[in-house]
C-alpha cells in the first residue's frame, strides 16, 4: 500500500478548542449531577465528553491526556453501570479531574510539563475502580503496560476452518500482528491438517504462534484481529522476558508441534507520534455555515452593485444618474450589512465566561460556610471573541466578592428574616451598542459609614471632606482601599475592586455600583461589543486629526482666558465647578505643528479615565463617528498615549488617543511634570 502523508498538526488547534468545550460540558454536567445524582442522561453526557477527549488525544499521541481520561472514563463507566455509587468522594475526585485535564490540555498546548496534581488525582480515581467488583483486566492493565518498553509477547492465532471461505486472508492478519513489533520467532502448527483424502480444499487447518518484542499494549495488538474475532481464536500472552529464543522453539517442538518457517515480514513498528508538536496557540473561531453563506450572498450583491455602477458610468443615458444613485445606495446598504455580519462572526456568547461560575460558587461557598444560590441570566448574550478571552476575570471576581463580602452567613440572614440561602445574580444583556453585565447580591449592602471611616484611616479622604453616599461607595474602587488585594488569589478570596475596575477599563468599559444597606449590592459593567471598532470623537490639532474614545469624553467647551492657570511652573490646570483639572496640550504631547496655543481661542475636551479627569487642548471638534481600530503594535510598535490608529473617510490616518494611559501618566507625574514631560517612557507602558 502506498505511503500517504497526512499532516495532523493542523488539527491540533481544533482538538484543543474542542477539548475545552468538552471540559466545560463535563464540569457543567458534574454540577448538575450534584443535584440529581441518579440522572442517567447527565452521566451519559459526562461520559461522552471524557470519551471524546480520550479518543482524539490518542490520535495525536497526547499520551498523558489519553491515559488520564482513560482512568476517568473507567470511573464514569462504573458509575454508569451503577457498580459504584455517586458520593461526595466521587464528586470531589471527578471535579479535581476536570482541573487536571484542563492543566494537561494547557500543558500539551504550550508544550509545558504536565501539572503535578495529575498523579495524586489519578490515584484518587483509581481507588474507585480498584475497589469496584470485577474490574475489566485490560482496562486496568492498559496504562501500566503502555509504560513498559519492548516487552515480549506470544501471540497465538488459530483461524476457524471457514476462515478463507469468509473472504479473509490469514497472512494479512499475521502481517498486521508482525507490524506491532519485532518478531523473534514464528511457528506454524500444521498438526490439524488431515490426510489428503480427508482434506477439504476450502477449509483452513493451520494455526500460528508468533513470539515478538513490542511496545504495543495487548489491546493494540488485538486490533489486528478486529474483523475476524468471531472467525478465529487468538490469544496474546506475556512471554517470560529472559527466556532465550532457542528455548521457546524447543518448547514448541517439545509440545509436538511441527515447525515450518513462514516468511512473515518483520517490519519496524511505526510508533505513533509521541512528541506532538506544539504550535503557538493560534486563535481560531468556529462559524456556522449559514453565517458564511449569508456573507457570500452579500458579497455577490456587492459585486452586482459594483457592476451596476460600472454600467451606469460607461453607458451614459438619460437615466444614468438615477441608475448610479440606485447602485450607490445598494452598495452602501450592502457594505454596511457586510460590516455588521462580519462583526457578528466574531461574536460569541458569554456562556463561556459564565460557565465556570457555578463551580467557583460551589467551591467558595463550601469553603467559607455560606449558602449561595447562583442565578445566571443572559449567558447567550454575544460579545466579540477577543473580549471574551479577556473578560473572564472581572465577573468571576465580582461574584466572588459578592459571596465573600456581600452575603451574610446563614444564621445572620435568618436573624434578619432573609432566607438562609443568599442569592447572587449575574445577568448580561445588550443595551445601546454595549454589553451590560450586572452582578447583584441580596446581602448586607455597603455601609457608607464603615467605608468612610476606613478611607479616612487610610488617608484617602480627609475627615472634613463632604462626600455623597455615591462618592463614598466609589471609594471601594480606589487602589489601596481593598485590603483583600494583598490576599492571594489561590486562597479563593476576592481581589480588590480596583483590580476589577482596571481590568474593565482596559477593555474600554466602565463600571458603576448601586447598593442599599441590608438589601444588597449591584455592580454593573458596561462594555463595548468589540475592541475592533471604537465610538470616537474626531478632533483637530494643527493640521492633524486625532480620535478620542467617546466613552471617556465628558464635555468640550472653550474656556475663558481666566479659567486656565499655571501651577508649579509649566503645568497648567483649569478649574471646573470647583475642581482643578490638569490641562494637556495635545499639540505638545503629540508634536503637532501649527496648532492653536491659546486655550481661550481653542477648545478643551474634558475626558475621564481611572477616576482622573483631564482637559485636552484641541483646536476644534470635528464630530463623532465609529472608527475601525488598527493596531500600532502589529503594524509599527507600541506608542505611549496612543491606543491605535484609524483610517479616515478621506484616506488619511488618524491616531486614537489612549485616555487611560494619559490619565495614569498624569497621575504619576503631576507634581513634577513640565508639560513636555507628560509623555511616559515606553518601558513604563509596556
Amino acid at each position, binding site marked *: 500500500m502506498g505511503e*500517504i502523508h497526512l499532516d495532523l498538526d493542523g488539527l491540533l488547534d*481544533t482538538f484543543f478548542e474542542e477539548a475545552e468545550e468538552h471540559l466545560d460540558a463535563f464540569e457543567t454536567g458534574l454540577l448538575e449531577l450534584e443535584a440529581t445524582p441518579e440522572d442517567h442522561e447527565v452521566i451519559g453526557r459526562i*461520559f461522552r465528553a471524557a470519551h471524546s477527549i480520550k479518543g*482524539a488525544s490518542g*490520535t495525536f499521541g497526547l499520551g498523558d491526556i489519553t491515559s488520564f481520561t482513560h482512568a476517568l*472514563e473507567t470511573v464514569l463507566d462504573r458509575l454508569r453501570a451503577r457498580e459504584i455509587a455517586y458520593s461526595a468522594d466521587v464528586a470531589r475526585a471527578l471535579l479535581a479531574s476536570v482541573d487536571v485535564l484542563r492543566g494537561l490540555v494547557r500543558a500539551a498546548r504550550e508544550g509545558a510539563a504536565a501539572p503535578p496534581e495529575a498523579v495524586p488525582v489519578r490515584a484518587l480515581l483509581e481507588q474507585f475502580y480498584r475497589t469496584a467488583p470485577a474490574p475489566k483486566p485490560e*482496562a486496568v492493565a492498559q496504562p501500566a503496560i503502555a509504560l513498559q518498553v519492548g516487552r515480549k509477547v506470544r501471540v497465538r492465532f488459530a483461524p476457524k476452518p471457514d476462515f478463507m471461505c469468509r473472504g479473509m486472508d490469514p497472512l494479512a492478519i499475521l502481517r498486521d500482528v508482525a507490524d506491532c513489533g519485532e518478531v523473534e520467532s514464528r511457528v506454524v502448527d500444521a498438526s490439524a491438517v488431515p490426510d489428503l483424502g480427508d482434506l477439504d480444499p476450502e477449509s483452513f487447518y493451520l494455526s500460528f504462534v508468533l513470539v515478538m518484542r513490542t511496545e504495543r499494549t495487548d489491546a493494540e495488538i*488485538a486490533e489486528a484481529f*478486529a474483523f475476524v474475532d468471531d472467525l478465529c481464536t487468538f490469544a496474546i500472552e506475556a512471554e517470560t522476558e529472559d527466556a532465550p529464543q532457542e528455548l521457546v522453539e524447543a518448547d514448541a517442538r517439545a509440545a509436538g508441534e511441527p515447525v515450518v518457517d513462514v516468511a512473515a515480514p518483520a517490519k519496524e513498528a511505526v510508533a505513533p507520534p509521541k512528541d506532538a508538536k506544539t504550535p503557538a496557540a493560534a486563535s481560531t473561531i468556529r462559524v456556522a455555515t449559514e453565517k458564511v453563506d449569508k456573507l457570500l450572498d452579500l458579497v455577490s450583491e456587492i459585486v452586482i452593485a459594483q457592476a451596476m455602477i460600472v454600467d451606469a458610468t460607461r453607458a451614459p443615458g438619460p437615466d444614468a444618474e438615477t441608475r448610479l444613485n440606485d447602485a450607490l445606495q445598494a452598495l452602501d446598504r450592502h457594505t454596511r450589512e457586510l460590516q455588521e455580519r462580519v462583526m457578528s462572526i466574531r461574536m460569541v456568547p458569554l456562556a463561556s465566561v459564565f460557565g465556570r461560575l457555578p463551580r467557583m460558587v460551589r467551591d467558595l461557598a463550601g469553603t467559607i460556610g455560606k449558602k449561595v444560590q447562583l442565578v445566571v441570566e443572559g449567558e447567550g448574550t454575544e460579545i466579540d471573541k477577543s473580549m471574551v478571552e479577556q473578560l473572564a476575570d472581572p465577573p468571576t471576581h465580582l461574584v466572588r466578592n459578592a459571596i465573600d463580602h456581600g452575603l451574610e452567613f446563614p444564621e445572620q440572614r435568618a436573624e434578619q428574616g432573609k432566607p438562609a440561602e443568599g442569592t447572587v445574580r449575574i445577568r448580561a444583556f445588550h443595551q445601546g451598542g454595549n454589553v451590560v453585565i450586572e452582578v447583584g447580591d441580596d446581602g448586607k449592602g455597603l455601609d457608607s459609614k464603615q467605608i468612610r471611616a476606613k478611607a479616612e484611616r487610610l488617608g484617602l479622604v480627609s475627615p472634613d471632606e463632604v462626600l455623597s453616599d455615591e462618592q463614598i461607595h466609589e471609594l471601594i474602587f480606589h487602589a489601596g482601599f481593598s485590603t483583600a488585594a494583598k490576599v492571594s488569589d489561590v486562597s479563593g478570596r476576592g481581589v480588590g475592586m480596583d483590580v476589577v475596575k482596571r481590568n474593565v477599563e482596559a477593555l474600554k468599559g466602565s463600571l458603576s455600583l448601586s447598593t442599599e444597606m441590608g438589601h444588597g449590592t449591584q455592580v454593573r459593567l458596561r462594555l463595548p461589543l468589540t475592541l475592533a471598532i471604537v465610538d470616537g470623537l474626531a478632533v483637530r490639532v494643527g493640521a492633524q486629526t486625532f480620535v478620542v474614545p467617546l466613552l471617556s469624553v465628558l464635555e468640550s467647551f472653550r474656556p475663558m482666558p481666566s479659567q486656565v492657570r499655571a501651577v508649579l511652573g509649566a503645568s497648567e490646570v483649569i478649574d471646573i465647578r470647583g475642581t482643578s483639572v490638569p490641562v494637556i496640550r495635545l499639540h505638545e504631547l503629540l508634536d503637532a505643528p501649527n496648532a492653536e496655543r491659546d486655550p481661550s481661542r481653542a477648545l478643551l475636551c474634558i475626558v475621564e479615565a481611572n477616576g482622573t479627569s483631564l482637559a485636552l487642548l484641541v483646536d476644534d471638534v470635528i464630530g463623532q463617528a465609529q472608527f475601525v481600530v488598527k493596531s500600532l503594535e502589529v503594524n509599527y510598535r507600541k506608542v505611549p498615549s496612543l491606543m491605535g490608529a484609524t483610517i479616515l473617510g478621506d484616506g488619511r490616518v488618524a491616531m486614537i488617543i489612549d485616555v487611560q494611559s494619559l490619565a495614569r501618566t498624569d497621575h504619576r507625574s503631576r507634581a513634577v511634570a513640565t508639560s513636555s514631560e507628560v509623555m511616559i517612557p515606553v518601558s513604563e507602558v509596556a
Partner: protein
Amino acid sequence: MSKVALVVDDSMVIRKMVTMALKAISFEVLDAPDGRRALEVAKGKDLALVITDLNMPVMTGLEFIHEFRADPDHKFTPILFLTTETDEGMRNEARSAGATAWIVKPFHPDKLIAVIQKLGI
C-alpha cells in the same frame, strides 16, 4: 466520478481527521455531527462508505445504523464504526445492526486508510 463517503461523529476533530484521511485516498466526503443529521444528509445519496461514531448525542450510532440500513438505497453500503476497546457489547450490537467493520479508537488516520483498503472499498 469520485466515491462519496459520509462521516458521522459529534467530535469535530474526529470528523476533520477522518475527512482528511478519506480525501487523501480520493473520496468525496460529507459529514454530520449526529445520527439524525446524518440520515438527512444520506437521503437519496449514492454512498460508497459510511464511517460513524457510536456514542453521539441526539441519535446514537446504533440507531443510525439501523435506520440507515432500513433504507433500500443503502442496503449494501459498507458501514465502518468507531469504537473503543471497552465497548465489546456495542461492537456486537453494531454488527447485528448491519455494520460491516469497526475501528478501535484512538486510531491514526493511516490505520483508517489501511482498513478501508483492506476491505476493498
